């Protein structure tokens, strides 16, 4: 009887430790989100979006240039990264499905998704910034695209593999060439999944900081020319948060608020699309 009791107590202790771990995980999430949202909300005002930075000491600065720069860099990165990523993933899932080397490429892409992003920054600095002679927005966009490509390759591959092979065979039987099958059958069937995957990948890469440090660098003036150093929200947060001025810290919190809100909305939206599709299918 004594032994049974001992085992029951052990069981209770172990299970409550597991519940405790779960609470710890939730606690960190709530702690981080609430402190960013509370501190950030008080720094949000119109001038954050409408004004450019002013010298420390003068009230009323904003981060308009960083918002614009971030948008431009992300847009160029998306234009470069998404087509390459989707095509590469299509190759791995379709033409190269049973080839040995596509398994290797797929593993390599998987490894690259966890790769130190600062090393990508160093790499792009060497191949783009040095030859061009100055920091520029294109280099930042390429650095983000390099991080984006393996992520999108993997999501595309996984999504396309979910489409039943019989659908393709039905199209082949009608005499369609493979590229028509991919375009009209596979892509159409996987459209929602592809869109969500791409959306989440872009959202994830858009908030990276480390690869932009040595590529697009920073700039406190509004610029629409990607051939110049370009400000981005994340690098600006880094610079302002490490700086000594209270007003800078407030701007950094405001920018963090916007970024966290962006990430939250994106991931809730993505999951909503997936769950809706899941119910219909």
């Amino acid at each position, binding site marked *: 009887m004594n032994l049974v009791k001992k*085992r029951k107590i*052990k*069981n209770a202790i*172990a*299970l409550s430790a*597991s*519940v405790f*771990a779960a609470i710890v*995980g939730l606690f960190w999430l709530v*702690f*981080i*989100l609430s*402190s960013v949202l509370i501190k950030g909300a008080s720094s949000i005002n119109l001038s954050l979006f409408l004004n450019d930075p002013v010298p420390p000491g003068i009230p009323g600065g904003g981060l308009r240039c960083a918002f614009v720069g971030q948008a431009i860099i992300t847009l160029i990165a998306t234009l470069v990264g998404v*087509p*390459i990523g989707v*095509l*590469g993933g299509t*190759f791995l899932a*379709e*033409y*190269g499905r049973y080839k040995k080397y*596509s398994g290797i*490429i797929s*593993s*390599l892409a998987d*490894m*690259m998704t966890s790769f*130190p*992003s*600062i*090393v990508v*920054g160093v*790499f792009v600095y*060497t*191949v783009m910034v040095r030859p061009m002679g100055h920091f520029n927005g294109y280099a930042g966009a390429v650095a983000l695209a390099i991080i984006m*490509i393996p992520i999108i*390759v993997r999501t595309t591959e996984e999504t396309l593999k979910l489409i039943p092979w019989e659908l393709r065979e039905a199209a082949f039987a009608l005499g369609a*060439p*493979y*590229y028509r099958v991919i375009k009209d059958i596979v892509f159409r069937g996987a459209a929602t999944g592809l869109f969500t995957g791409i959306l989440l990948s872009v959202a*994830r890469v858009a908030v*990276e*900081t*480390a690869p932009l*440090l*040595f590529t697009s660098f920073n700039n406190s003036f509004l610029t629409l020319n990607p051939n110049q150093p370009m400000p981005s929200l*994340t690098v600006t*947060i*880094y610079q302002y*948060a*490490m700086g000594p001025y209270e007003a800078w*810290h407030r701007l*950094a*919190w405001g920018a*963090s608020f916007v*970024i*966290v809100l962006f*990430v939250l909305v994106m*991931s809730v939206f993505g*999951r909503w699309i997936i769950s809706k599709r899941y119910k219909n299918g």
Partner: protein
Amino acid sequence: MKERFYVKEGLFKSLSFASALIIVLICIAMFVVLFVFSYPAIKQFGVVHFILSDAWNPVRKVFGGAGAIYGTIVTTVLSLIFAVPVSLGIAVFITQICPHSLKRYFSNAIELLASIPSIIYGMWGLFTLAPLMRNYIEPFLQKIFLPIPVVRCLFEGTPLGIDLLTSGLVLSIMIIPFISSIARDTFELVPKELKESAYAMGATKWEMIKDVIFPYSKIGVLSGIIIATGRALGETMAVAFVLGNDHNIHLSLLKSSTTISVTLANEFTEADFSLYLSSLFYLAFILFIMSFTALGLAKFLLKRMKR
């Protein structure tokens, strides 16, 4: 008509093949570029000497990577010590304890931790966590551990909050979702029959978890831990805020330090002569090799498990 199909087919196929090939090309190009640019430093300082020497002195033009490598390894190990038990507990909770209706929400909440950008972790670490560590947690730890003879050297010094301990804690929060989601997936692969036979023998839930689920899924969990290690090794922004930038090696966890990625973030744009820049490339090259090895090992284990 038919010929046009052939042309388009060939075009599409070669385009998509080229896109897949870009992944390989980027990897090779990174390796070559990092190696070529770090070659002057490799020639100057050698491999073993660079890794073991902590002399990082741009003024005297002497560089050694030991300080940064030490900081990288210590923060990674600390983060694993904090994160592994919590992540396994979370995975056990999700698969065995959590009511079915809450399961999805809870998994999503934990995975949300992975989508918070690292710069936010850094901001939060610097302005929210570091003061708490400085004022409450680190003095408390010192009160407990300073009287103990050997352990005391880990907790010496003035608590500033900007140190190895805080960095390890922030990193651990970042890697919890990676370990716990892989652990959850492998726990769910355990065949129902095995669990039921354990229950039929009269095992308690914990005994079933300990003697059936853990042994069955150990390789999957291990590869999750290694992937998390790869992440922690290369994380930059979250650590850059709360680690300071000190190339000296201190045994105490309450001293500031630096990691390879933090050194790169802080000094890369300031390196003003070629040997300095080359030494930074050397560090980046070492980081590249370290994380490539870790991630490759994890991939290999996962592949073997699936077979």
